[in-house]
């Protein structure tokens, strides 16, 4: 068993291409993709900030220019005034410009906007309106609308209400105050808790996929498995040697994925308020325990599927649907953050239970029973699968295609 275990490790570590594709390339890709995402997001934000929006305004109130100068809107946006009697063709042209991205916003004040607002006395009196035409599919246009509302309309509203009531406090009937009663660790971990199970489960499975398919179905295809079956070693020793070797390699591969993710995630998500997240020693131990059981489970299920296949291509066809199921199981917990707590027995379901347990670790809520069940569920399945794989290794129909 020891020799087969060492050979499995040697197969990877003696091959520069394998080391690169298994450990270096995923790190480069992950860091590259996340940093690219971060750069693109930052670039998009700064691009919107730097963009001077083109705003058309019709029927402007008399004090509009003064107000725009006071709030700085006349600098932040390029204001183009449209005559009150502008033709339908001119208005259509402005709308076409907004549609094509040549303009960002078209604001139409009701005629005698200020007079109507100031003359309001009783219910039923006419209330003046402002129509904002913009393109919600264009970032510049949406940003121009938000800026106009904040720098012009909100100020107008405050000023007019001040004039109408004299004292703005008259509009305040009561005040309310929120007091947050939360577990700070849980609060910090909520966002992480929603994403971590999915990422870990997906990474662990993806890390093991190629290795296991090649080590079992690939060896069958190349005829090298038969060479090993002809040695005077028990089939169970071959199975154990392969499974342990593959588990170690998969675990190392997933560590690379995890470290890359830790480095890369802040690059993409720095602005999303994840803040500082740190794990206690107990949480790390819990996480490692769950991950080790998951790696063993993944390696066993992948090897089990690969044993049935005559070649790598066939094995990949068997593995792909299982990979999709694994992704779905990992995603199921993504939408359950802060919701109803799942039954403790669900933690014993392989993969799904691990996903729940990882989520609970991130939000610092994992109980010993839940931890034990999630690990035991995986390990129990591993034991069953090892027995089945060993039996299959002794089956000439499966191993020799007889």
């Amino acid at each position, binding site marked *: 068993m020891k*020799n*087969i275990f060492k*050979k499995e490790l*040697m*197969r990877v570590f*003696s*091959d520069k291409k*394998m080391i690169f594709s298994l450990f270096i390339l995923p790190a480069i890709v992950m860091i590259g993709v996340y940093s690219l995402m971060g750069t693109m997001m930052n670039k998009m934000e700064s691009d919107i900030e730097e963009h001077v929006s083109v705003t058309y305004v019709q029927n402007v109130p008399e004090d509009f220019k003064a107000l725009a100068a006071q709030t700085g809107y006349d600098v932040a946006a390029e204001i183009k005034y449209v005559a009150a009697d502008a033709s339908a063709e001119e208005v259509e042209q402005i709308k076409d410009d907004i549609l094509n991205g040549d303009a960002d916003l078209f604001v139409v004040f009701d005629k005698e906007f200020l007079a109507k607002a100031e003359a309001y006395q009783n219910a039923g009196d006419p209330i003046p309106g402002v129509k904002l035409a913009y393109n919600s599919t264009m970032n510049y246009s949406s940003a121009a609308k938000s800026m106009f509302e904040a720098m012009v309309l909100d100020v107008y509203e405050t000023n007019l209400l001040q004039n109408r009531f004299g004292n703005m406090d008259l509009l305040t009937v009561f005040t309310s105050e929120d007091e947050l009663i939360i577990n700070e660790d849980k609060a910090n971990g909520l966002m992480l808790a929603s994403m971590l199970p999915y990422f870990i489960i997906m990474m662990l499975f993806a890390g093991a996929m190629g290795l296991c398919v090649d080590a079992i179905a690939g*060896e069958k295809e*190349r*005829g*090298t498995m*038969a*060479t*090993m*079956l*002809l*040695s*005077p*070693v*028990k089939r169970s020793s071959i199975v154990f040697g392969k499974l342990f070797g593959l588990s170690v390699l998969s675990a190392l591969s997933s560590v690379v994925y995890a470290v890359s993710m830790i480095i890369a995630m802040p690059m993409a998500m720095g602005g999303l308020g994840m803040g500082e997240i740190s794990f206690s020693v107990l949480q790390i131990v819990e996480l490692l325990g769950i991950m080790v059981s998951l790696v063993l489970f993944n390696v066993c299920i992948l090897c089990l599927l690969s044993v049935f296949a005559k070649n790598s291509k066939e094995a990949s066809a068997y593995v792909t649907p299982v990979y999709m199921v694994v992704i779905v199981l990992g995603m199921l917990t993504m939408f359950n953050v802060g919701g109803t707590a799942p039954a403790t027995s669900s933690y014993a379901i392989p993969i799904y239970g691990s996903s729940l347990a990882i989520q609970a670790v991130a939000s610092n809520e994992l109980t010993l029973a839940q931890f034990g069940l999630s690990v035991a569920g995986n390990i129990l399945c591993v034991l069953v699968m090892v027995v089945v794989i060993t039996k299959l290794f002794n089956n*000439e*129909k499966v*191993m*020799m295609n*007889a």
Partner: protein
Amino acid sequence: MIEIKNLTKIYKLNKKKMMELKTKETTKKAADNITLTAKPGEIYGLLGPNGAGKTTTLRCVATLLTPTEGSVSVCGYDTVKQSEKVRENLCFLTNEIKLDPHFSPKYLFQFFGKLHGLDDATIEARRKELFEYFEITAFENKRIEELSTGMKQKASIAVSLVHNPQVVIFDEPTNGLDIVTARNVTDLLLKLRDEGKLVIISTHIMSEAEKLCDRIGVIIDGKKVTEGTLSEILAETNGADLEDAFFRLYKEHHKEEK
């Protein structure tokens, strides 16, 4: 020594294989009640057309397949009940069984030596002897995938002989080899025979069988139809040579599938 008693091997056919073989039968008898004995210090040749059951018989001897009926013993060990002991005493080489392309001949020699429970000194001594014989030393550290077909075959033979087995089984030993490598292999078979090993080969190359084999068993449609030395078979069939004898036997025993 190998003793095969009433060996029968029946494969179940799935629909795909039934279509491939153009048959309505759900089973195929690949080996049909074969009995033979081969002794140390001889080269025993299994002769037959493709699909006759030679490889199936040899795979049963090598413990890769389990007989449906009958028994096989190698050096006194039963291939089903004592399969690991059997594998300690034989090597089985065929074109379908290959070396891992990611490793060098040297690494694989050591790896299989250890799987056979040999100590480092024994492995090293065997490696020197076999690598020199096959002239592998020059490329012993190259990966198998970088080697030519001839080099790969040499490496495969050397690795399969790491444990100095008493029984050497070669399925189509020279198939696909260039003339120089083929000569190397046939010389090796004679050398092993002279060292007192039992060598079993399967072949459909008549000249090879004539030149190499001390005794020949002819298998047609899964049945052993005759066995003996070359002269005994020629006398039995009135054949001018082995090829002629084989065709006479084939005509007599082969049944066209309907």
